[in-house]
């Protein structure tokens, strides 16, 4: 049995940032990740990370409040405004911090962190490291943790370990159980605090830009242990992904002037009311929806995909600004993007919902925290702005680490739980042994594929009651068929048949919460588009969907959205001065509004830099 004060599940940006915080506070921590942390999906982020640094001339009047305003608007008013303000206010600190740690951001001529414009932002606010921002940030954090850990060794990595269960008793965390993929053995970890940082759930969809590891299992572990899921129906779809593999083709391509064409080479976006003006640079969800409409009309190339045409930009510009696009078109589609159009289609891209946490990353279970894409604070609401999710990981990763540390310092360590841990382990072991014994003729790989295709077809970009209910029925059938999965390979080392079955069972829990939430949200908001209810309905649905696990399926309830900064109906900006007296005193929103803005502080030389070495 392992003994740790805190266990972090997930080694992406959010998990690593939380780890840094815990190790810095000398808390004995385990970081468990099913892949080497540097292979986490955070790696894939290309575009950049938002913070109102004001480094670009045009962006000088930028400040965190404007960032917050854009984010609230982007969330279609269902993001919690106190959380959004907190994130935007912390953003510059976190960016400077990771820069001090070595993050190789691209630079302006003056040597400052370069920033570029991104969809939905009023300013060039997105800091970037060429088109490999996630890679740069992930490696930097990993590196600095190596540094911290060199001497004090408070952190132990469990790489290629897969967490299967969270042990909760009396509404507080007692431990977890994890499978060492290398040996196939289950191990109990005794701990008082656990942080779930397992990333998004994209792979519940057959077409997704997410890595194969983003299955939602991490969420399912917390969900089954009693934590709630929030706003799961909000799933972002990206318009341009490579046909077939669904690798992301950056929005930058359209930003630079690439055309979207149908099978007769027509810029079809002009035929749709909501995109005819902005054309290719209309918002993501509008472009994605019109692409699907065009494909359904039978106007797709080879009846399969549309074309993203870069040719008119010329070789020079393409190679300079979009080298990544050339590379992936060549490697994965065998296409020379300079002379040929790229086959593209929309695909799932981001999970706005997640484990329900408060502004301090706390769930309703004592000692259980969540951060990053796995969590729903919520800062993205019904739609995430590009560049805000990387920011979320480092801001809330840090907060989760802090909150867990604080919790640990307050509680009395109750070490006597041998019996509980042992019986949980026995039960989990028996469950896995039973799976090994199964001789059924279904395959976990095949069922996973069927589930994700059903999700794409029924709970995709367009939704309606009939399809959603059909989706739920499909899912129930797949769930039943899981009982018939046989495991042919009986070895224990890296048994991927077993592994995928465990993933699948988790993914089904999550998929069900997505569908149930979507059925009950009878409006269209942000990424959630109901053809039978095409309008936003603030009167009835300006609220968070909460899903609670029960063996019969998700039980839904609702929670209010924290407002108080920007008024949804009219979507205008109320200045803090006017608003502060109107807020209930003592509310988090009031506290945030009352605090001085860091953009003013930033001019002040006395600004404390956090985490100096």
């Amino acid at each position: 049995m392992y003994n740790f004060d805190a266990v972090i599940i997930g080694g992406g940006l959010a998990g690593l940032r939380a780890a840094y915080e815990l190790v810095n506070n000398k808390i004995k921590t385990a970081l468990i990740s099913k892949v080497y942390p540097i292979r986490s999906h955070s790696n894939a982020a290309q575009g950049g990370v938002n913070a109102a640094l004001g480094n670009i001339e045009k962006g000088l009047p930028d400040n965190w409040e404007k960032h917050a305003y854009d984010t609230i608007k982007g969330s279609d008013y269902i993001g919690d405004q106190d959380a959004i303000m907190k994130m935007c206010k912390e953003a510059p600190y976190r960016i400077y911090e990771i820069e001090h740690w070595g993050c190789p951001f691209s630079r302006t001529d003056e040597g400052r962190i370069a920033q570029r414009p991104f969809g939905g932002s009023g300013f060039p606010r997105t800091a970037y490291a060429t088109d490999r921002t996630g890679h740069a940030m992930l490696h930097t954090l990993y590196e600095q943790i190596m540094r911290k850990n060199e001497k004090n060794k408070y952190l132990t990595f469990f790489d290629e370990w897969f967490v299967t269960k969270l042990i909760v008793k009396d509404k507080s965390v007692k431990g977890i159980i994890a499978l060492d993929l290398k040996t196939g053995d289950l191990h109990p970890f005794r701990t008082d605090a656990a942080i779930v940082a397992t990333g998004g759930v994209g792979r519940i969809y057959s077409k997704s830009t997410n890595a194969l590891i983003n299955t939602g299992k991490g969420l399912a572990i917390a969900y089954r242990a009693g934590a709630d899921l929030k706003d799961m129906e909000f799933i972002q779809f990206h318009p341009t992904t490579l046909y077939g593999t669904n690798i992301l083709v950056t929005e930058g391509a359209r930003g630079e002037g690439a055309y979207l064409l149908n099978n007769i080479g027509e810029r079809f976006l002009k035929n749709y009311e909501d995109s005819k003006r902005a054309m290719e640079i209309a918002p993501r969800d509008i472009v994605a929806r019109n692409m699907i409409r065009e494909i359904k009309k039978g106007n797709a190339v080879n009846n399969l995909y549309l074309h993203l045409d870069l040719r008119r930009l010329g070789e020079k510009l393409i190679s300079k600004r979009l080298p990544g696009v050339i590379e992936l078109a060549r490697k994965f589609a065998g296409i020379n993007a300079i002379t040929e159009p790229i086959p593209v289609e929309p695909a799932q891209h981001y999970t706005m919902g997640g484990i329900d946490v408060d502004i301090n990353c706390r769930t309703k279970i004592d000692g259980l925290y969540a951060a990053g894409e796995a969590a729903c604070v919520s800062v993205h609401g019904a739609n995430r702005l590009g560049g805000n999710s990387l920011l979320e990981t480092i801001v809330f990763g840090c907060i989760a680490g802090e909150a867990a540390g604080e919790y640990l310092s307050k509680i009395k360590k109750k070490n006597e739980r041998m019996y509980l841990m042992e019986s949980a382990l026995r039960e989990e072991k028996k469950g896995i042994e039973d799976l090994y014994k199964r001789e059924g003729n279904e395959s976990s790989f095949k069922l996973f594929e069927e589930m994700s295709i059903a999700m794409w077809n029924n709970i995709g970009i367009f939704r309606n009651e009939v399809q959603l209910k059909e989706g739920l029925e499909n899912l129930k059938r797949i769930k039943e068929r899981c009982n018939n999965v046989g495991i042919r390979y009986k070895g224990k080392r890296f048994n991927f048949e077993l592994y995928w079955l465990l993933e699948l069972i988790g993914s089904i829990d999550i998929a069900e919460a997505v569908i149930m939430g979507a059925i009950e949200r009878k409006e269209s908001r942000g990424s959630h588009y109901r053809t039978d209810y095409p309008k936003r309905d603030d009167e009835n649905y300006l609220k968070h969907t909460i899903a609670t696990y029960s063996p019969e399926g998700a039980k839904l309830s609702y929670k209010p959205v924290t407002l108080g900064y920007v008024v949804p109906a009219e979507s205008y900006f109320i200045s803090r001065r006017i608003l502060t007296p109107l807020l209930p005193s003592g509310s988090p929103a009031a506290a945030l509004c009352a605090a001085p803005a860091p953009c003013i502080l930033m001019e002040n030389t006395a600004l404390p830099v956090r985490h100096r070495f």
Partner: protein
Amino acid sequence: MHINGKYRLACETQILELNAETIIIQPLGHLPVLRDLIVDLTRFFENYRHIKPYLIGKSPIPEKEYIQLPEDRSKIGNTIDCILCGSCFGACPVAGTDNAYLGPSALLKTERFLTDSRDAAEEERLKIANDIHGVWRCHSVFSCQEVCPKELNPAEAISKIKKRILKKGSKKG
């Protein structure tokens, strides 16, 4: 993985491009095989940790970001792209014969920090690289450069480190 005679990233290798009837896939070299194509990367990551793979920033730490001019940023423009895939390590004949050799990617990482205008630990880094199992073990076979999927050149980085050490006149090993 070793695919038809060359180290490549399996995730991006296109079967048609191999232009072969039979495809032979083998695990990464010089590392113990755990199962089928899966190897134990412990040694690879131990080497990585050994070279202090992190920025040791100059003091004082500025209030905002360190100023790094674009020409300075371009010096690390390549080396930061290393994904620690281990292809160079598997392909390096020296890594196969000397168990203690730091290997191409760890030394490339050393060069990454040596060339970062924000780093203050040149001496410390050179001391680690200046070892018979460090840069001096490299025989400039250039297999690393040949296989690197990110088109990086660890061998060149190693020779740059050698030059830095020689300039300081402190060759060891």
